[in-house]
């Protein structure tokens, strides 16, 4: 009898822990998914950040999101359901499929191209030979010397 009670208590504890865990997980999913969807009332805000009390859209959309999460729908399925109902503008960022991939790739592509260009320019400038006059190096005039002094002053100032 005592063992039975102990086992029942253990089982109750396990079930409670499981529910608590699932609840936390569902809360976290609700929060994550709620930040991937826009409120469509025109406020241009994230669904969970739309702070218009009485905004019929955000209350309804939050309710829908909660029901999808409770039902155990996957993230993709949930977001797809929102797209089906409210159109692609409901997603807060472009997807990584089709033409939308271009949105994500382009900035990195520009960064890589820019870096490559800068490095190539620097290398070209560095490897370009200096032209030396055929008559060889002549004496430096006072004017040239003054120009070099001025350049040295500029170089060391900042």
């Amino acid at each position, binding site marked *: 009898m005592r063992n039975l009670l102990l086992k029942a208590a253990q089982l109750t504890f396990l079930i409670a822990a499981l529910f608590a865990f699932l609840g936390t997980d569902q809360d976290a999913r609700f929060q994550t998914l709620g930040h991937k969807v826009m409120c469509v009332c025109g406020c241009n805000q*994230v669904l969970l950040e739309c702070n218009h009390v009485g905004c019929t859209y955000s209350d309804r959309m939050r309710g829908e999101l909660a029901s999808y999460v409770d039902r155990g729908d996957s993230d993709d399925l949930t977001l797809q359901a929102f797209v089906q109902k409210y159109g692609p503008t409901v997603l807060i960022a472009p997807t990584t499929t089709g033409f939308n991939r271009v949105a994500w790739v382009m*900035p990195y592509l*520009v960064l890589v191209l820019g870096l490559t260009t800068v490095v190539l320019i620097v290398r070209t400038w560095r490897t370009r030979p200096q032209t030396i006059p055929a008559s060889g190096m002549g004496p430096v005039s006072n004017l040239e010397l003054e120009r070099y002094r001025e350049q040295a002053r500029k170089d060391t100032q900042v």
Partner: protein
Amino acid sequence: MSQIGSFALLLALVLSAYSFLAGLVALVRKGPAAERLGETARRAGIATFAMVFLAALVLVIAAFQDDFSIAYIFHHSNHDLPGPYKFATLWSGQEGSLLFWSLLLATYGLVLRLRYKTDSRLFAHASVIIAAVQVFFLMLLNFAAHPFALMQGTLPQDGNGLNPLLQYPEMVIHPPMLYLGYVGFTVPFAFALAALIMRYPGEKWIQITRRWSMVTWGFLTCGVFLGAHWAYSVLGWGGYWGWDPVENASLMPWLTGTAFLHSVMMQEKRGMLKTWNMWLIFSTFLLSIFGTFLTRSGVVSSVHAFAQSSIGDWFVGFLAVTFAVCLFFYVKNRSHLRSEHKLESLVSRESSFLFNNLLLLVACFTVLWGTLFPVLSEWVQGNKVTVGPPFFNRVNVPVALLLLLLTAVGPLLAWRKTSIESLKRNFLWPALGALAIGAVLIVVGIRPWKDMSYLYSLMTIMLSALVGLTVISEFIRGGRVIKGHTGQSLFASMVQLAHRNTRRYGGYIVHFGVIVIMIGFAGAAFNQDKEQEMGYGDKMSLGAYTLVCRSYTQEDKPNYSSEWAIVDVFKGGKQIDTLYPERRFYKASQQTSTMVANRSTFKEDLYLVYEGLNQDTGRPILKVHLNPLVMWIWVGVWIMIAGTVVALIPNAVAVRVTAPARIQAAPVGAGD
């Protein structure tokens, strides 16, 4: 009243058109007659200011006199609007803000035309370019967005009132600051184009415009961050930057302007990057105009956008013509922009500026790309996608981290070439310091492996520490040298050091401000929030705080009625504050607005929003945000402004000390 304003605007257009055309003819022709014609053009430019000022004054007076026969006043003001907001009516709507833009441009033009003796030919060219821009805005005001258009039919008793979101003290200064920045870039643009057109020898035009560029950049910085602070205080969603298209529009010229302020030093010091700098300032001006186009054309949806109107087409035309003029003169005179020197090493101040420019431009491109991608997407696949904060944060945060790294390394590099040994010597202690700070943060509880945002946050703080330590070490190193020569205290030596080269050390102070802001941004990874219905005596806990709702109350004022909650804040069992979050209902516009209650400390902001009554239960809803380190952002902005002011102070002439003070101060008999 409206007739005076309309006449002033029309006369201003005629005067600015004369200033442009007569100035142009005077530049093409030569001789005393052309000089006299040029002088009349200059004076017409000055008179333009008087007329635009008169028009703006008339609109402000009409707002104070509640002259609702003028449609603009009817739509943006009402009887009970407080005085400062009646003044702000000038820039609260489409037509008024264009008039304000024109007024600022005329004011900048006035200053430029009064200072023409610095270099009369260069200033005459710049004056013509500014007159051309002025003609465009005055044509808009006269023919497309007339601020003095009259109401049709029966005169209304009261106006619609100012948008409630704009009825906040910062909105009286945020738009002027932003516009001073936007419009101000016209001046360096005009000088750059003038220098290109006349193949101006040397870099004097850069020295002339240096202060203009820095002041303009300072105004734009203030404007951008005032906007962020306004969004944080009024919109009530707990954030300060939402990557809204109009916010992006202000950020883009700021990024290219920042790149220009850095790379222009290479032109001044080494005669390099002339083409690059020319196009940077062209781009900055074009982006300022492009931002205005975005706000006013309805091409992208934004919470800030003005009503959709046809003036977007005017801006497209102006952008196209300006770009064509810039391109034409660049192609014609590009031989004038050849570099005088080449880059000698990858490890040099020059290359750090190159990479800095690259990263700033990539950030600018990303913002532009993200802002316009919905339009592109609609064009290609038939539907507009949303490009929101996750996109901008994911793409821009790594770029910002690389920029921070460069901000740390760049100042330690010498012009032309730096030896790895000297870099190691200068970099070792700051790098060890930054690593130590990172280790402490991990021990304290930041777990970078748990979430990407924590990793970014940790890296931001570490790199900010690195920048801060290099800046401090630069001040101390320079200060010690002066101390050794003069014998004064280290602090006094550092002040003298900054005064000797204000641009360099002012720039370091700006960098210091930037890292303080970045640390503030890093705090966002740890934001928390909670929403709850709160009746009398109900409690809500978040972080270390417990909030107890003491009461709710209502108030009726001429302009609005408000409901607000009285909430006691407890920490560690002790009451530390009482907050009053408020929700207002503006009578004229029939719209509501939140007034956030914020308890701000260096550690965190306790940010409380009264969201109103739950329609189902009739109980009030409160939302509380706990936002760490936000105050650092606003403090950082003040440091940036201080740095900009220091950089604007003229350099003190270096004091040559022939007899070191230490020897003079040595005790008698020392060394005997």
